[in-house]
């Protein structure tokens, strides 16, 4: 039973005449080779065979903890650098196959906002120069037209060209810098914005402002988002669908409301139940994970999550569970997905509080 959110997005896409996703990521792999004294040469599979798509007008959140590969996946999609294997089909063209000018042109429609607003902006440039650079690089319009566009964009993100235009990043707050980064990302009229922990460095009260800004821009500029975050509340708030990653793989993909009300993968359930609530209530049926995240250089056999999973069985060690569609818009990579209430499904002897 699909939620109306996802259906609405698909319907809009169909009405607009599009039958293909805006971004189609297929079997992407990204491996790092690390040479450490004492441990020799090891391969770290940061992203191991990941596939998902984003439709026009949709926001997909990528959530997961440290080392799950979400940032690496984002950078692979942005071709920073391109992945070793797989396809990244954006507006019909596979970016992995493109080079030089062809790649640059194809990438105009995809822009990025990074986590740290201070390190992602050149400290020696002022705001007008920073936001204007993409237009200058791509030789868009006349100088006057570019100036006007920069002023419009600054206004769209809540800044004033007259007040902030000549300031440098160190003369701005974190929130203001992030607004500059967003304006800069909008200059080339992208279709897809990749936001990599874009609000994680900001104070709580400023986060709310920037999240609202993202929503306003979504409707004003007809944007789709790939929103990477470790904060599940933010993911739920911003997205239509959420992909949960663990150790380089997507373990669950679901409409956001459904993921929260009915997680199917034990890891998703554990993440959700670990979130502290600001009304002081404890979560019933809290799943406690034991142990630490295994090394990505030496992932467990079979299911990568099995070493911390309270429901793991022999099959989980022998066979890696594929990411299967279980219903409209829902996929899970698990041999024993959870039923509606975890306590009922827990095998005897497992820790479920």
């Amino acid at each position: 039973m699909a939620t109306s959110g996802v259906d609405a997005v698909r319907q809009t896409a169909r009405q607009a005449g599009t039958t293909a996703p805006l971004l189609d990521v297929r079997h992407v792999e990204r491996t790092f080779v690390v040479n450490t004294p004492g441990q020799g040469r090891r391969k770290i599979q940061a992203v191991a065979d990941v596939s998902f798509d984003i439709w026009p007008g949709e926001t997909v959140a990528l959530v997961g903890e440290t080392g799950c590969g979400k940032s690496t996946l984002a950078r692979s999609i942005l071709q920073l650098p391109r992945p070793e294997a797989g396809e990244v089909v954006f507006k019909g063209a596979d970016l992995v196959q493109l080079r030089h000018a062809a790649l640059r042109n194809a990438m105009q429609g995809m822009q990025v906002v990074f986590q740290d607003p201070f390190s992602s902006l050149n400290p020696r440039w002022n705001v007008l120069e920073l936001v204007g650079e993409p237009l200058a690089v791509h030789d868009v319009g006349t100088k006057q037209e570019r100036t006007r566009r920069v002023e419009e964009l600054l206004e769209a993100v809540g800044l004033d060209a007259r007040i902030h235009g000549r300031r440098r990043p160190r003369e701005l707050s974190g929130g203001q810098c992030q607004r500059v980064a967003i304006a800069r990302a909008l200059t080339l009229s992208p279709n897809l914005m990749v936001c990599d922990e874009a609000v994680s460095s900001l104070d709580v009260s400023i986060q709310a402002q920037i999240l609202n800004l993202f929503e306003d821009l979504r409707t004003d500029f007809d944007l789709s988002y790939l929103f990477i975050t470790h904060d599940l509340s933010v993911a739920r708030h911003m997205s239509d669908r959420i992909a949960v990653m663990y150790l380089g793989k997507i373990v669950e993909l679901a409409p956001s409301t459904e993921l929260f009300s009915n997680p199917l993968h034990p890891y998703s359930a554990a993440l959700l139940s670990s979130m502290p609530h600001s009304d002081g209530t404890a979560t019933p049926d809290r799943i406690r994970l034991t142990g630490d995240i295994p090394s990505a250089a030496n992932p467990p056999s079979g299911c990568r999550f099995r070493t911390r999973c309270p429901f793991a069985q022999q099959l989980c060690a022998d066979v890696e569970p594929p990411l299967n569609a279980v219903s409209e818009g829902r996929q899970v990579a698990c041999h024993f997905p959870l039923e509606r209430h975890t306590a009922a499904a827990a095998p005897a002897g497992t820790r479920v509080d």
Partner: protein
Amino acid sequence: MHPATGDDVHSSGTAAPAAVSVATADAPALPGTEGHEALIEVRDLKVTIPFRGQDVYAVRGVTFDVHRDSTVVLVGESGSGKSVTARSMLGLLPPATTISGSVKFEGHELVGLSEKQWRQHRATGISIVFQDPTRSLNPTMRIGHQIGEGIRRHFGVSRAAALDRATELLDMVGIGSPKERVRDYPHQLSGGMRQRVMMAIAISCDPKVLIADEPTTALDVTTEAQIMELLLSLQSQLHMGLLLITHNMGLAFTYGDEIAVMYAGRIVESAPKEELVRHVRMPYTNGLLGSLPAVDDLPHSQLAAMQGRPPDAMTTPRGCAFQPRCPIAEARCTEQAPPLAVLDGTHACACWYPL
């Protein structure tokens, strides 16, 4: 005889008679802590730190208590002064800092102590767990040695005895195979395990008060839950007072007994958790809670974000520091800064028009 104050030194207070914290205009009595002695009493603490020729008014008059067997949370955004408040309890502020007001630990005044005097209180009296264990642990020393360092210094035991105690402590903080682990270097441990080592160091000399300064900010949410529960378990085992510093409202409400919200160097609201959950009085606290994305929001809805941002710590605002962002501010708010006033027995608020 205490060198600084001339007081007779108090015996270790495990069986001390109850010292009830009297409700004054400044420090409301905490319900359920009558009978728990106040280990730390902060009265009108002000901290000014010079920075590049200018004064930063980090803390502008803060008053609260930390009781045995109780958890006080100082919650606020960056620049609110919460970390500086915590560090003032351990003498961890830069030498040129100006501190006024009073911070008493078991009746001893801590403001104005010399470095030598501070060492009598650190580790054995008050201890701290910092935010980033990677930066707080010495990367060139084995963890057993680091845990044992404080023990040897304060109790003068042999290296072997300190190592045994370190192994015990590793077990207490939930690190498996402690006998082997005690020889590890920090880089061989995960972030969660390093934080456990930090906690082992912090409790190694049986402190009465433990300060945890953003202890889980660098950790993932599943590890965070484990570490917070460990912290509370250690508190209850050792009967410590716990002062938790955080910007995370969810943590504050989950783990605090008493919550004090800080803004621009002052406490603007303080109450026991149940009372604060029931009724938020300060518009800033209300605004902060309201701007958090909640799990039952509709996706793509607007958050009730507050406009503006916290004031510069180098300026002294006239009137209430929150006034420029406050949805219900009136003329009085720009003219006079509201004091932290007790509204009823347990709930204090610094606002002329509490909600």
